């Protein structure tokens, strides 16, 4: 499979180009905060509930809120219908996504409570964990959860020996490497990093920088979406 032709990728993007991304803040009524994201072929809804009481009391932390994060794929989100409920992949993604957003949340404000983040993948086309984190980050802000900043996420990969940003399904399935990253936008520090495939040390360095650039671009869109929602609304 040839992934890059005349410098363009199979969907006509440049190697360092993101897919089209759209944020819709406050897409749900019941949730305390929510955000719908379309990122290429991905369609993702995130909702935040909390801070609220933790039910099995032994899960409470005396001096801070706990964060729970559930990444879930709808049965119809992928080509072959998947059985509802968590599988091993979604349990791992829930864990690393929770750890990705945790660093910016000021948990000390809400001892003995929980902040619950629910991410539903309605349609999947590579990069769902990143799309979910991006949506979750905005939904947290929409819910008014106190944060030190936003988290943005995207994947970097390698196809035809070229480091590329934001893989689509075919690049993910048949490419040479995949590396999702998430970044604390304020500090540039990395809060999620996974990788599999094959990278030389040089390619890895290039990929890491490209990922950070991608995150920076996405962060700008997140901020704009939040501003757009809240501009015109008075401050309390």
């Amino acid at each position, binding site marked *: 499979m040839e992934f890059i032709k005349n410098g363009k990728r199979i969907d006509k993007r440049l190697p360092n180009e993101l897919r089209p991304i759209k944020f819709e803040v406050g897409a749900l*009524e*019941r949730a305390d905060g929510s955000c719908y994201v379309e990122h290429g072929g991905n*369609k993702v809804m995130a909702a935040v509930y909390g801070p*609220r009481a933790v039910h099995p009391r032994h899960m409470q932390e005396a001096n801070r809120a706990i964060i729970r994060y*559930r990444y879930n794929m*709808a049965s*119809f*989100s992928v080509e072959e219908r998947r059985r*509802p409920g968590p599988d091993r992949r979604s349990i791992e993604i829930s864990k690393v996504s929770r750890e990705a957003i945790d660093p910016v949340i000021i948990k000390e404000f809400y001892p003995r409570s929980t902040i619950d983040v629910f991410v*539903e993948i309605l349609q999947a086309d590579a990069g769902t964990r990143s799309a979910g984190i991006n949506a979750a980050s905005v939904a947290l802000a929409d819910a008014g959860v106190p944060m030190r900043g936003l988290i943005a996420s995207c994947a970097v990969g390698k196809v035809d020996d070229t480091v590329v940003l934001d893989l689509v399904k075919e690049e993910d399935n048949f490419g040479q490497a995949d590396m999702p990253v998430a970044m604390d936008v304020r500090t540039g520090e990395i809060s999620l990093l996974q990788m599999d495939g094959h990278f030389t040390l040089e390619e890895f360095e290039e990929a890491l920088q490209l990922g950070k650039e991608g995150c920076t671009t996405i962060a700008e869109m997140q901020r704009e979406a939040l501003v757009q929602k809240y501009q015109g609304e008075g401050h309390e």
Partner: protein
Amino acid sequence: MSDVIAEIRKDYIYGLAKRQERADGRALDEYRPIQVETALIEKAEGSARVKIGNTQVLVGIKLQPGEPFLDSPDMGVIITNVELVPLASPTFEPGPPNENAIELARVVDRGVRESGAIDLSQLTLPDGKVWLVFIDVHVLDHDGNLMDASALGALAALLTAKTPAERYGYGPDAPLPIKEYPVAVTAVDLDGEIMLDPSLDEEMIASSRITVISGAQGALAGMQKAGTGTLSSEEISRIVKLATSKATQIRDDVLGGLING
């Protein structure tokens, strides 16, 4: 919502009902605005998002070749599932479907199945397999009356679904053989006042709720009473008549384009 507030809210809604009014200004037999969008999920063979007021469900249809039931080898198979994901309500919890999700799924399923909405005999495949039709209801926002939203979403998604025949080597894709258009109308009874399309508040304080599913000719295809209250046969008869006529109206207004398109 604490119990005291709930009690005040309850009195308020009952008080309004006595005057034939509702908290959101609707007439007793009036639905909240209904929006139906189809084909949002390209990876699904059919899909529809239904909003009834703030209630929002997304239904996806997936089709795949599979084994028929032993006792009906010449019929396609319908499998309906409802996920009350915790994103949709502070009261929903992660985990396998609870009794409410199961009841929802089974009532939607029977509505489609028993009304004959899909001609299952046309879903056989040349190699002895049949199409398995998965109706997956993903509830996104729960503000009452999930039953009607789910049933409507299922029908709208089925109406736009195509068999992925080509992908599996069975010739060209084709729309599903839809023969009937069952529409669910749900009512609650508050001290003798019948309200259609209950909001979450109304649903929570009503002691019983009835869903009536009827077809294009006005015949009944399904019913389900829920809740710990009782209803007189006179109340039930009134609800059934009201529901079948409202179903016709919804079918024409909301699904007309899909049915005749």
